[in-house]
Each structure stands twice: as C-alpha cells, then as structure tokens.
C-alpha cells in the first residue's frame, strides 16, 4: 500500500496539494480526475518519490519512504509528456532492467514481450525523433511496465494517443494487472476514460480531494451574503445558489444523484432550476442501471438517473430538460 498522509506541498510558497490521506492499495485501479492545475501531476510525483512533500509523510507498506531510497524501484511514473532517452526504443525499454542488474537474456525476453503487448515491436530500432507523440507515449508506458513495478503511476496516458492507441494501452494495462498484482493510479481529465477503466475514481480540485464524485465541480469566488448563508456564485452563464458560510475562492460540487431531471419546471423548494438540452446519455459500465445525463444548461451539468426515468421522460440527445437541485445539496469546499 502506497500512501500520502497529511501531505501538504507548496511551490514557491503557493500551496498546490493539501491531502489528509491518499492511499493506493495493492492491485487497485484508481483514476484521479480534475481540471488542469488541480494538483494531479504533483500528486503523482510525490507518490513516485521524485519529490519530498513540504509537509507530511509518504508510506510504502506502512514504512516511511523518501526520494532516493530503494523504494523508488517499486513505483514507476509515466509523465504526461514523457521523454525518451537519446537512444533506440529498444535501449529505452532496456534501461530500467539494466539498472536493476537483470541479465541479458532476461532483458531481451522482457523487452520483446512488452513490445509485442503494446504493439511497438516495429518501433524497436527507431530513435525518439522518428516517433510520433502517441508512439512516444506508448513506448514510455512499455518502458515503465518492463520493470514490473508494484505501483504504476500514469499522468494522462492517452492524451497524445488516438482512440485505437488508447484502447491498446488500456488493454495492455488490464492484461498486465491480470498477469500479476500491480496497482495503477492514473491521472486524467477525461471522465469517460476514468470511469471505463478504474475501480475507484477520485476527484481533485485546487489540490484537495473532492468529497463527492468528480462531475459538476466548479471553481468559484463566493461573495459575502447580505443575510444568512445562502450565496450565489456565477458559473458560466448561470448562477448557482449554495448554502455555505464560506467566502472567497471555493469549489462547488453538485452531486449528480441530487439533481432532479424533468421536462417542465417543477414547483418545488429547489433554489436552482436550469432549463437546457440533453447533450449525451451514457452508462459508465455496461452492467450499470444508472444513466449519466449530460445537459447544457448554460453550463454543462451531469445528472445520474435510472434507466426507467430516462424511458419515462423520453430523453434523448437534444431533448429539452430542466435540471433542479436544492441549495443545500451543493457541497462547498
């Protein structure tokens, strides 16, 4: 188990990560989602033991570990824009195995094996300037998998890949996890990929973990209310009402399961009522009964409703809908 405990990390005095606890259990498939600048890459670099947190501890199987120690050989990171060494793809794949003193025959076997699984065998003789961005990313993932880490950290692994390459990548990860115990923690801003691939999706916003699922997170500036705790924050072209005593910069989270979906405005206590049109309907997993309804209501909001509700409301892309939720349902952190 790889853990960050009471970790705070700052660059030049600016706090970029503030986590009470973040754990990667053995064999887990975790996706960390969040917008650019939310702290995902910093989180992965701390987990990879490439940086020492400004405060707090990094634990591996209960023991405190630090950058530069032997523990780093159990955790490998593939950065968002990975770089290959000035050498052939084969030499790149061999690198991590050679530093571990693995004998030549085994190095060759592992390189051939991982290259075949990630469909990069034809690239083995090429150098970095002869590869596309997507190929570089696949080679970087192969290079990380070749060393058979206990924890593999991937920062936006499919950002430069086309759909087919991304599927090859995710299939290779699934095969690797089926073959041997390996935890994977992946940072992505693509919720679709995160839900399709991970067992556990966690949302990061402004360096903090969101207490709710990662949809409908908005960075806002909260003004002091004239009376009481009901505050209004501008998000896109709409104004969201929230009950909070917080003022200043904050994150608003609207839990998708707390949103009522209707075809007409409801006479209700909900302080937030937004008409719009359905943009997509999706099931995160084939066996899941819930449907994620995304609508453009001036800002993109996701609601989770049952399949039966989708049928009753005759929802389809383009259908006019009204999304409603209570001010007290909005989480502020």
């Amino acid at each position: 188990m790889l853990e960050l405990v009471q970790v705070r990390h700052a660059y030049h005095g600016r706090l970029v990560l503030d986590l009470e606890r973040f754990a990667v259990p053995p064999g887990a498939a975790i996706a960390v989602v969040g917008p650019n600048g939310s702290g995902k890459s910093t989180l992965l670099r701390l987990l990879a033991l490439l940086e020492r947190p400004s405060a707090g501890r990094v634990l591996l199987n209960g023991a405190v570990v630090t950058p530069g120690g032997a523990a780093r050989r159990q955790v490998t990171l593939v950065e968002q824009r990975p770089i290959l060494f000035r050498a052939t793809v084969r030499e790149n794949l061999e690198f991590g195995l050679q530093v571990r003193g693995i004998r030549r025959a085994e190095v060759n076997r592992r390189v051939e094996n991982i290259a075949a699984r990630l469909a990069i065998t034809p690239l083995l003789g090429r150098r970095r300037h002869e590869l596309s961005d997507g190929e570089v990313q696949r080679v970087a993932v192969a290079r990380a998998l070749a060393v058979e880490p206990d924890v593999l950290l991937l920062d936006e692994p499919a950002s430069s890949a086309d759909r087919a390459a991304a599927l090859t990548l995710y299939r290779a990860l699934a095969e690797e996890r089926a073959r041997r115990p390996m935890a994977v923690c992946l940072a992505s801003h693509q919720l679709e990929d995160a839900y399709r691939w991970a067992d556990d999706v966690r949302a990061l916003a402004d360096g903090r973990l969101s207490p709710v699922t990662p949809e409908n997170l908005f960075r806002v500036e909260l003004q002091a209310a004239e009376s009481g705790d009901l505050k209004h924050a501008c998000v896109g072209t709409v104004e969201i009402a929230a009950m909070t005593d917080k003022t200043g910069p904050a994150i608003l989270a609207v839990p998708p399961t707390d949103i009522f979906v209707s075809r007409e405005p409801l006479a209700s206590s909900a302080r937030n009522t937004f008409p719009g049109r359905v943009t997509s309907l999706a099931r995160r997993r084939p066996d899941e009964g819930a449907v994620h309804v995304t609508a453009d209501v001036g800002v993109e909001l996701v609601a989770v409703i049952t399949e039966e509700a989708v049928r009753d409301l005759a929802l389809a892309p383009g259908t006019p809908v009204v999304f409603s939720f209570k001010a007290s349902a909005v989480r502020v952190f």
Partner: protein
Amino acid sequence: MDFLAEGFRRALALLFSGDAEVYGIALLTFRIGVISTVLACGLGIPLGFMLATRPFWGRRAALTVVNTALAFPTVVLGLLLYGLLSRRGPLGAMGWLYTWQAIALGDVLLALPIAAALAAAAVQGVDPRIRRTAETLGAGRWRTTWTVAREARFALAAVITTAFGHVVAEIGSAMTVGGNIRGQTRTLTTAVALYTSQGDFGLALALGLILLLLALLVNVALQTLQGRGHA
C-alpha cells in the same frame, strides 16, 4: 602585399621542410594543451554538474564566481601565479617557475571556470524530464548523472573544444610564468609574439598557421566523435 605573400611562402616552406624548432614548439604547445584541458575538464565538468544539479547553500554565489572567472585577465592570472611560484612565493619550493608545468598550471586555472560554467549551462540545458525519468526507472545517483551527461554529450564536447581552444591560444600567463625560453617553455603563442617583434614575419606566420591547424584538428576529432552518436 609582397610582404604578406613572402611571409606566406616562408611559412609554407618552414611547415613542409619539417623545421625542428617549429615542430618542437608545436609539440610542446599540444602537450601542454592536452594535459591542461584534461585536468581542467576533469575537475571543471563535475563541478559544473554539481553547480547545475545539487542544491546547496551558496550555489548561486558559486555560479557567479565561476562566471566572473571566465573573464579573468590572463596576464593578471600570470602575475598572481608568478607571485606564488617565484622563489620567495609560497609555492617557490616546487621550482616550477619558467617551466612548462607552470604554463600548464596557469592554463588549468584559466580553463577550469570555462569548463565548469559551460558544463553547468550544458547540464541545465538538458530537459529535466530526463533526470526524473531515469530516477523513476530506478537509476541511482551515478547512473542518473551518466544518463544526463549522455543527453548533454554534444554540449559537453563543445566544452572540451572551447577549453582546449582557450588553452592553446593563451599568451599572458604563458609569457609571465613560462618565460618564453627557447626549447623549454616557448609555446606557439609566445613564439608568435617574439618572432613578430623580431621582424621574422614568416616564422611567426608559420607558427600561427600551426596554431589554427591544432584548433581545427581538435574540432574535427570531436565532431567525428559526435557524428557517431545520433539524436
């Protein structure tokens, strides 16, 4: 024009006749140049790595000192070295004054900051992801340093060429601590200065051409080495 043409003719004649004095001077210059460059780069390149990669107290001040030393006047360096190596100086007992070792010492002191400053710049020019990638793949400190050096190898080769170029072209310190003694401490630059002042323009020009040839040879050798490693 006749004067120049005559100078060139005499220079070529001296070069192709295998004149013992000319080649003796060239050989001594080459020997001092190689020894000084090896020592200066052997010390300066690791120092440059340290300045570029290891955070320590006073690192910025150290970088400033090294960068300032780049512009240190060679005559002043020779003067200080003269004070140290003269009989009454603290290093007088070594008996190095007016020897090729004194010239080499001056050249090392001259090339050391060049090697350190340019190596630091070369290492700082390497994409920081290279270091992180090596580390995350399990490389220890030395293997990571070697990996970064491999990435910077073209720039590091330029460091060696530049150091060698400065060392063989240096005159101020060589003249002061070497004394320009015929057959012992006369280098290409001090000889060129002497023969020009004596009016032997042809001989001075011949030695100047050899100096250029030396710099060219070292550059070609390093470029050939670089050519073997592709991007």
